[in-house]
């Protein structure tokens, strides 16, 4: 049976992380997606409002996260994946800001991933196609950035995962970076060959894919073994809502408007054996505090359903 995970945002509190991991365990999860991005929020980064959490030394950061690591271990929760803060480059941002993100935040995130003995860290690629004029040039910038952290990944035994993102044109959502599965597969293979190690993989984000009408089954099948981790969540096709799967309908028949059958078929096609990880933190802020555990339990039940269907 595939293992189930969920992001730590809105569950794990820094003052007593073990309590949060205990909640996850009771809800039915055995894995967690550690939200490093919660310590440097994207909304602040875009405003150049940096809190300098990552300015601490690696030793201090490890000391800060010691209780998190211990709490997870004591509750039997595996930190199976992490999310690096994003964006890692701000077009229009000061050089100082972008240097800080690339030279401080990224390597320290890698160090923390290693500290948690976590195998996968998800990054957001650069969004620069508008400025540079093509997706190819945009990827060249991302690859230059990757080359600064891939040697660390190799040394630490970590696979960095690129994720399918969306972009917006006057309110209309379109493909962002990493939405071409064929190109992503070629790039991952080429880079792994270059480093003689599995340093790059893919994180398939169901919500982002749904926003731009990607065929889940085709995309996942094309990625194949390169698909390492998941961000499972749902939306109405218009906004990146990060809600519970099967929540949205678009017809009077009230069938789910997201192609979860295609998702299951895709994972079955590639014999996916990673973690079924939910990126549904906003659900927990939407439900009242008293229902948080029940909501998490329900998400885990959906995970069990997916696992059964994928295992066939």
């Amino acid at each position, binding site marked *: 049976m595939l293992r189930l995970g969920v992001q730590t945002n809105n569950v794990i509190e820094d003052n007593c992380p073990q309590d949060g991991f205990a909640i996850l365990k009771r809800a039915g999860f055995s894995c967690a997606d550690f939200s490093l991005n919660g310590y440097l929020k994207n909304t602040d980064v875009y405003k150049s409002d940096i809190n300098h959490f990552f300015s601490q030394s690696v030793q201090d950061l490890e000391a800060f996260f010691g209780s998190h690591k211990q709490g997870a271990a004591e509750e039997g929760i595996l930190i199976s994946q992490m999310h690096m803060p994003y964006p890692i480059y701000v077009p229009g941002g000061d050089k100082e800001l972008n240097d800080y993100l690339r030279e401080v935040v990224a390597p320290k995130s890698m160090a923390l991933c290693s500290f948690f003995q976590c195998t996968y860290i998800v990054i957001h690629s650069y969004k620069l196609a508008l400025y540079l004029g093509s997706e190819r040039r945009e990827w060249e910038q991302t690859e230059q950035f990757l080359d600064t952290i891939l040697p660390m990944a190799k040394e630490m035994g970590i696979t960095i995962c690129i994720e399918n993102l969306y972009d917006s044109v006057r309110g209309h959502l379109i493909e962002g970076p990493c939405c071409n599965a064929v190109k992503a597969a070629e790039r991952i293979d080429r880079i792994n060959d270059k480093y003689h190690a599995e340093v790059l993989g893919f994180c398939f984000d169901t919500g982002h894919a749904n926003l731009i009408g990607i*065929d889940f089954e085709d995309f996942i099948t094309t990625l194949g073994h390169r698909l390492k981790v998941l961000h499972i969540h749902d939306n109405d096709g218009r906004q990146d809502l990060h809600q519970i799967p099967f929540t949205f309908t678009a017809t009077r028949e009230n069938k789910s408007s997201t192609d979860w059958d295609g998702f299951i078929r895709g994972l079955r096609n590639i014999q996916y054996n990673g973690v079924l990880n939910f990126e549904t933190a906003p659900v927990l802020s939407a439900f009242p505090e008293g229902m948080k555990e029940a909501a998490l339990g329900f998400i885990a039940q959906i995970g069990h359903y997916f696992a059964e269907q994928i295992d066939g």
Partner: protein
Amino acid sequence: MNISCQSIINPERPVQGIIDIRRAEFEGVFLRVSAHFPKSGSMQEGGSGCSDASCNKSREEWLRKKYSPETIVERYEETIEKCKESNIRISAVSTPGLAYKVDEEKKYVAFMRKCAVEGIRLCSQAGCNYMVVPPLRMENERAWESNREFYLTLAETAREYGVRILLKNQEKETGGRFVRGICAESFQAAEWIDRLNAEAGEEVFGFCLDIGICSLCGNDIHEFISELGQRIRMVVLKDCSWQRETALLPFTCVDSGTDWLGVIRGLRDVEFDGELVIDFSGTMRAFSPLLRPALYKLAKETVKYFSWQIGLEQGMKKYKKLVLFGAGNMCRNYMKNYGEKYPPLFTCDNNSKLWGTEFCGLEVKSPEALKNLPEDCGIFICNIYYREIEEQLRAMGVERNIEYFNDEYMQSFDFNRLDIMAREQ
């Protein structure tokens, strides 16, 4: 690049549509033929205007007879004749787009094949080279095999009549939402065309890119076009809302705009020189018939604008030498994007304080300097006050080779300028 519009002609009374097209100065039309897909027994109920089953049955029989695929050539004969009389070109013909029930698959395939064959004959009669045949709507796992057989059986007919078959990107519906269907991923579309051409033994197949479908499916349109390259023979310009396939006049879908920058960048990259079709049939239906002639004229201006933007570089290539008018952001963007390939002799500006200075490596001169230009030199206005500046030049006696440059859709943007804009937001 040839310009045409999606047909607004009623084949049963074609004259008015043709008058409207001619008055809007369209040179061509894209005919999407209709045909009636015979309904199964249960689908005969509830037909419009009839409450009893016998009435519906006789209506169904009438529709089958009148609109069977076999009648396509005959039904559009008058349209073609009248178009020829009015010097309106038929740019392409398309089969009807149809959904079907799973248990009707054999009937559906045979019906679509017949429509395509008759459509090819119609193409030949109309003197046009392109027949748009969208892929059969099949489940993913059978999509290639079913379509391969379907298209290859059409290849012989296409060869015989000298017509090229164009595949088209499709959406598909799942749970009330539209997602990417067959050929809605660029690599799949490119692979299909190449395989079909290889199996057909010659280039019988190409691609018709529907921008509305790209928009509906959230495609990166620039990438889509770049991947398909010269396989794209025809582009259908239309706006499409985020939730359903519609054909809106470009720039009118204000809450969910199409990535026109990606469209123009992509078509420039591949030096598109095929059929450019504007489809505004959805917008047209919303307008009163009395207002439609004015709408057609706007549509013509719109597609002309796209043609001009796509071919912007062609305008520069025309001249051995060129100069710019304007020493501001637009001039900077010209120099960034085209300065090396088409270096101007100098630029000029109405601001006398700038005369004698240098801007982006160009000497800034007085507009008076434009009076002594050689004959083969183009003047490119790099300022949004195009018409006012053009008037100024004509009043100065400079009347030849006046062109507009525009930086709304550049291949790349001045990074420093955008950085400043981002900070200001």
